[in-house]
């Protein structure tokens, strides 16, 4: 039933004027994808740099809250660009994503990754010493950083995999 509804939605989207424009102008989809990837690069690198700082692998000379303040706020406006370009890509080729399990897997991973990254940002702005209070907190911080790296890598992998699992 859900599949049928998504199929109908895809059909309806594909028939819209906007979808037509995106489909027929050959440069639109590659261009949207390029902007999308550049946005992904910014968000992914920002999250990873903070995770690496938590592991004390990079930027040890800067306090963790400083590193978080320099890199994490960038994520949210760039996320808006990703939602717009991603949304337009769906309108252009609805079946490619809406009828594709990989797409929903990517969205689920993204939701968790964003919650975790947002939580990290919030915790450090509320209490700069949050992840540095004692040994337990430091270990927890490293766990959070590891999960964050895995989640963001998963988002990117799933994103690329959408192209290989589309239902035609």
């Amino acid at each position, binding site marked *: 039933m859900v599949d049928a509804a998504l199929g109908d939605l895809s059909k309806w989207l594909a028939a819209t004027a906007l979808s037509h424009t995106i489909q027929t102008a050959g440069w639109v989809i*590659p261009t949207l*994808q*390029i902007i999308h*990837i*550049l946005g*992904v*690069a*910014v968000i*992914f*690198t*920002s999250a*990873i*740099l903070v995770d*690496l700082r938590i592991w004390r692998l*990079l*930027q040890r*000379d*800067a306090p963790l809250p400083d590193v978080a303040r*320099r*890199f994490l706020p960038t994520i949210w406006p760039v996320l808006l660009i990703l939602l717009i370009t991603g949304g337009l890509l769906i309108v252009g080729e609805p079946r490619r994503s809406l009828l594709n399990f990989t797409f929903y897997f990517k969205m689920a991973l993204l939701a968790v990754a964003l919650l975790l990254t947002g939580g990290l940002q919030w915790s450090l702005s509320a209490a700069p010493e949050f992840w540095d209070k004692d040994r337990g907190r430091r270990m927890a911080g490293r766990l959070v950083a590891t999960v964050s790296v895995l989640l963001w*890598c998963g988002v*990117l*992998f799933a*994103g*690329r*995999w959408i*192209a*290989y699992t589309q239902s035609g």
Partner: protein
Amino acid sequence: MMPQLQHLIAYLESSGLADNIRENDVLFPLIESVHVLAICLVVGSILAVDLRLLGLASIQRPLRRVMRGILPLTWCAFVVAVASGGLMFISNATKYLENGYFIAKIFLIAAAGLNMVIFHGISGKDLSRWESEARLPLPARLAGGLSILLWVCVVACGRWIGFTMKVG
């Protein structure tokens, strides 16, 4: 192209490894996903340094500290990007060499490298005198701006290779 290089490429393309990447349904997407992940880190981390050069981010931190805290990630990711890119290349070397976007991408990466060498070797020689200022000298700002431009073009060409070549 030099005949020795041509022989080497032909040899690699006919190797068992190249054959496996070509024929296996999962191997190419897997390598490609790793490549995208690595490229995102390369471009994202370089962008962070470029924005410091332009005086748009991390301006409280001296340039060398910014570079030392970020560029190790860039180099690790670059090694992974070259390795994964090399594997994709040997799987279909002849076709890649006929693809204009591939050639352009290689030259753009070389240009980005040259830009970096010129900055570190010439314009950045007296860096200790001005690296703490928010607004850096013109050559430094130019190097940062040019670097962003070149890497955006690298990503664009990379994505366009996928649309102009039917492999994988």
